[in-house]
């Protein structure tokens, strides 16, 4: 009696462990802790994370931090320097610069992060499967990704913007369309080398289905470069958004984004006389991008210090 019950208990326990193992929970937890500890030792990454969080939170809680709408025009109070009411002054049509930076940040970060995440998702789903399965499916996806990667990004972006119309959503879509290829190839090449490893081969012997091997057993090991990639591409897309604004192809000008705010201040008179219109925004964008880069580099260093 007692033995039967204890065996059942033990079986249950093992089942649980197996479940967790299959879900990849145990490994992640352990690795996460170690990675986190290592990451915390990286001063730049920690500083980056702090700056990142400050800016991110400020943008998210913009309505609490500032009473002004970023679009509220006040023709009676234009181009005023920083005052108690307007911490960072007002722009050419009397809108509060501080609130524009915060709300603009929301949009810029959303565009950057959304695009990076979209690219990564497509890259993971397709890359993992194609890399593991190989064969025709693999070559088809590789070809498609090559097509997208070989079309100069600018041409793709310009044409898609013209065809679909300019809007924040379309910009994200365009960034994902033109950027998924590289994350796909990265995941795929990582999976390509992992699938030759013994543990994968033994899983195959056990007869596990392809999706399970792919997404449960191989993916977690191929994930770390993707995380790095998401952070670094977030930074890249934020800068791309700014570049598109400059070329007149970005988010419509009436939507405040960091790119649009900077672009509006690019004439020499403003540069020389109304520093509050560009300097704070410039600093915030650069700090934010830099901090993301440090976080990304930090994760990379901790995960795999020798990886190129």
């Amino acid at each position, binding site marked *: 009696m007692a033995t039967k019950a204890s065996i059942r208990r033990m079986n249950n326990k093992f089942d649980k462990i197996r479940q967790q193992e299959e879900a990849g929970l145990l490994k992640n937890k352990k690795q996460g802790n170690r990675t986190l500890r290592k990451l915390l030792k990286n001063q730049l990454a920690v500083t980056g994370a702090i700056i990142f969080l400050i800016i991110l939170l400020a943008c998210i809680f913009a309505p609490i931090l500032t009473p002004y709408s970023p679009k509220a*025009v006040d023709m009676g109070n234009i181009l005023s320097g920083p005052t108690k009411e307007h911490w960072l002054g007002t722009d050419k049509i009397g809108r509060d610069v501080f609130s524009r930076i915060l709300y603009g940040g929301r949009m810029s970060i959303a565009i950057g992060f959304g695009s990076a995440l979209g690219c990564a998702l497509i890259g993971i789903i397709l890359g993992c499967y194609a890399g593991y399965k190989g064969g025709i499916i693999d070559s088809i996806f590789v070809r498609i990704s090559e097509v997208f990667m070989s079309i100069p990004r600018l041409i793709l972006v310009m044409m898609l913007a013209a065809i679909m119309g300019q809007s924040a959503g379309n910009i994200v879509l365009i960034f994902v369309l033109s950027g998924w290829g590289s994350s796909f190839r990265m995941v795929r090449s990582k999976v390509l080398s992992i699938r030759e490893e013994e543990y994968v081969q033994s899983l195959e012997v056990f007869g596990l289905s392809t999706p399970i091997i792919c997404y449960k057993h191989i993916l977690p090991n191929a994930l770390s470069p993707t995380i790095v990639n998401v952070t670094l591409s977030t930074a890249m897309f934020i800068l791309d958004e700014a570049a598109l604004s400059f070329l007149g192809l970005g988010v419509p000008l009436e939507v405040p984004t960091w790119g649009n705010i900077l672009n509006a201040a690019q*004439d*020499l008179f403003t540069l020389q006389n109304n520093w509050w219109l560009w300097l704070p925004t410039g600093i915030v964008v650069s700090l934010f991008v830099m901090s993301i880069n440090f976080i990304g580099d930090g994760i990379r260093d901790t995960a795999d210090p020798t990886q190129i």
Partner: protein
Amino acid sequence: MKKLRKGLLLVLALVLAIGLVACGSKDKDGDKTPADATTKGAESQDSSKDETKDTDTTSDEGASDNVLYANGGPEEFFETPWLNPGSYMYNKVLYSRLIWADENLSPISGEGDLAKSYEMSDDGKTLTFTLRDNIKWHDGEPITAEEIGWNIEYALQTTILNSVFNETFKAIEGAQVFIDGDADSISGIVAEGNTLTITFEKVAPDALLTFTQFAPLPKKYLENTDPVKLQQSEFFQSPIGSGPFMVDEVKMNNYTTLKPFEDYYGGVADFTIHLNPSAGDSDPNLVTNAKAGKLDYAYTKSIADVKALEGSDGISVEKVDVRYTRLFYMNKFDKADGTPSPLADQRVRQAIAYAINVDAICSGLFQGAATPANSLTPDGPDKVDGLNDYEFNPEKAKELLKEANWDENTEIKVFYYYTDQQTQDLMAVVQQYLADVGIKIVPQLVEGDLATILWAAPEDPVNGPSAVEWDMCYAANAALSLHEYYDRYQTGYAINSHTPSDSKLDELIAATNASVDAQVQKEAFFELQKYENETLFTLPLYYQPIFVVKSDKIAKGLETLGNPQFNYKWDIQNWGLK
């Protein structure tokens, strides 16, 4: 073995990568990469000479001391002088016109430019030019009256022709038959020796104005080109004109130099002109170039440029009032689905005029560089006194809206096509002002086939429905002649997408076109302006002046400033540089 393979591949990769670079840079010799140029430093001496169109480069000593720097240089081609006759510096100086205009663009009577004299008959239907004897093209060939007549015929076959020119030429006797292809030449143009006689079928109110701006081109280079592709002909890569300057060296999108034309009848300049490339009338590098001493003459509409140049050493900026009006077109046609236009009611249009504080916009957004408008016609002798200024009055606006039973849920679609920041800001401001009185507007930037999106005229010019989707359209009218402002509101006019037939309006516009007499025209315009002001069939917003930027290197010349976008007697060949 494996190591060897790896090494080999690395070498291969490098070679190919270098090959990529080399392939691209092979087919030219002057453009060295810094890397390989260091080894060939001596050779790069002549690097500035290649790709030169003309062989005689004048970049020797002395030339650089007497250079007038200007902007508007070609990026891909020289624009034909028949669309924007004087927008570009090169179009002003490379070509001569038949007669001169003064700085107010009024034709100067007596001696002309290519014409020694000219005469307009009293009924305004016969115009006779007598050409000078010693006029030549830049290639040394003489200019004949026959050639100038041919130019008019050729111009009518092109598709890009200034609308004032077009109206004038079409009024010539036999022009319509010629356009329809039923005649080989225009019967109303007769060239005899050095006289050219033009007979008009109906009065062309801007005939003289046209010939102060229309630049004849040498026939022999163009007679075998397709008029439809005039702009794309090789001629406009390095054009030959008859003006005081001729093309010297062209480096598209980099710089272009012009040198004095030795055979110019009016004197030979003692300086050359260097043009920095820039498109249209907006030069993004105007300020940087001017501050760096690379711009001696230019003009700009941008107040940001003017502000940035204020107080710069050796640079003066002068304001010139021109015929340039920014406005909202008001679409009064029924919508495609049959619902009446929200702007068909005169009171709504007036309410909009009262609700927008144009004064504040001009002094704030435009920093005083724009003047509030009460008519399409700019301030000056051409405008009648006593027009309603529609001073900012939100209460009055609300009252008018109430009278008109305005529905606050109505959305008014405002189209604009300028991509600059200022327009964007203006839209935000207007949106706010109108929201304050309960009018909701949706500004929308439109791109693509603007001709259809903005100006497609309805099939039925009386009852509509509208062929365009906008209610209001922010636009600019840059007019050479006052007729250009108003002709477009006539019933059934080619680009009238907004104003349904109005017999009173048609009558008033027709009156302005009935005579060549300046005084008669003026009276007719006065009546038209009053009607415009009362009904607001269009909503003028503000007048934008142009700023002429000039460095103190120009020691002599430019004493009286005219509209820099058009040609007037400015005697550039006699300017003195220091």
